[in-house]
Each structure stands twice: as C-alpha cells, then as structure tokens.
C-alpha cells in the first residue's frame, strides 16, 4: 500500500462519510448540497486512486464524474426549484473547501506527472470539477432564477 492509496483512502473516507451523512439526514436543501459536494469530494479520490494503482486510464472515471456530477445536480436544481425557492441552500463554505481540495489534488498530481499530455488531461479534469461545482452551487442558491422561469 503506497502513499497515494493511503491519501486516496483518507479523501474517500471523508468524502463518503460526509456525503452519506449529509444526503440521508436533514432538510431538503442540505441533501441537495450534499449530493453536489459528493461529486467534488469523490473526484479527487478517484484521481488519487488512478495515481495509486499507476493506471493512467483510470483518470477517465474522474473525467466523467467531473462532467456528469454537476449535470446531475443541475437536474435536481431545475426539477426541485419550487421546493428550494423558499429556502435556497447557500453553502459557500463547503463549496470553496471542496474546490480547494480538488485544486490541491490536481496541482500535486500535475507536479508528479510533469509537463505533457497527461498534465493537460489532469488540468481539464480540474477545470471541469471546480467550474462545474461552482456553477451547480450557484444554480442551487438561486443564482440562475431567470433561467428557471424560462
């Protein structure tokens, strides 16, 4: 068991525990926020797993999750808009913390990978992860209200 797998286990333990606890208890707004943050917390874990197993093709899983996770959150933000309108979930603290975790993991892995196509792929995953997370959080807190009414 190398250090990458240990780091992946730690990130996954925090991510799985927090998202599971958040999504199964509490009011609806907190559950949607937890579903959004599960993407942002598990994607760095998948990246670390890919590095730990030394299989670069495993990065595809993180890429797909970074692409589709925010899409799933936007589905909930659109279809639960009426329920969430009264008390829009604003969780910018956890959102920025998750974005910081993703940025740190991607930066470390980029430093290990060195310049090349692998690094560009990691940067694409990181940009999709952080950007999608911020857009989904903004949609949940009612930032795109004019789109919802359309």
């Amino acid at each position, binding site marked *: 068991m190398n250090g990458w797998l240990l780091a992946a*286990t730690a990130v996954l333990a925090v991510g799985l525990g927090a998202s599971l606890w958040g999504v199964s208890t509490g009011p609806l707004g907190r559950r949607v926020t937890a579903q959004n943050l599960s993407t942002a917390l598990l994607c760095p874990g998948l990246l670390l797993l890919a590095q730990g197993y030394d299989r670069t*093709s495993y990065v595809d899983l993180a890429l797909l999750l970074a692409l589709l*996770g925010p899409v799933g959150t936007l589905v909930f933000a659109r279809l*639960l808009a009426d*329920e969430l309108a009264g008390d829009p979930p604003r969780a910018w603290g956890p959102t920025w913390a998750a974005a910081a975790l993703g940025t740190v993991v991607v930066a470390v892995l980029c430093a290990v990978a060195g310049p090349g196509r692998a690094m560009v792929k990691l940067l694409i995953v990181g940009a999709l992860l952080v950007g999608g997370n911020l857009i989904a959080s903004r949609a949940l807190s009612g930032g795109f209200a004019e789109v919802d009414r359309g």
Partner: protein
Amino acid sequence: MADAVIVLTLLAVAGCATAAVVNRDPARQALVLAVLGTVLAVLFTVLQAPDVGLSQLAVGSALTPLLIMLTVRKVRRRSAAPKDGRQ
C-alpha cells in the same frame, strides 16, 4: 492493508443503499440514489473494474435521477389536479 479502501467503499455502499430504502419521500430517495450511483462507481474502480465503473457513472449519476425526478413531477401533477377539482 490495501484492502482498507475496499472495506471502506463496501461499507459506504451498504449504508447508502440502506438510506435509499429508509427514506420515504421519492425526491429524497432520488438524491440518495444519485450518491449511491457515484459510490458504486468508486467501488467498481477499487475492485479494478473501471469499465463497469464508467457505465455505472454514465447511468447512475445523472440519467437515473433525471428519469425518477421527471416521473415524480408528472405523478404529482396528475394526482394534484383531480384533488383540487373535488375540494
């Protein structure tokens, strides 16, 4: 020691699936199910089956919640209309 991550994800899958059954509201069940889809993909990755994990991610993280939420919305609208008419 390398099995720790497998045990961890297995426990998470068991807990998430239990939470999906225990919740009674369909919208909340769909939220738990979206997380369960992602956690299952992590489990498949840990068990060295990334191809299965890829298809699980593609279906479980966005498509299944979308179908469930659309169905819930349609059922609620249909069941709300006659009730309002009667009352």
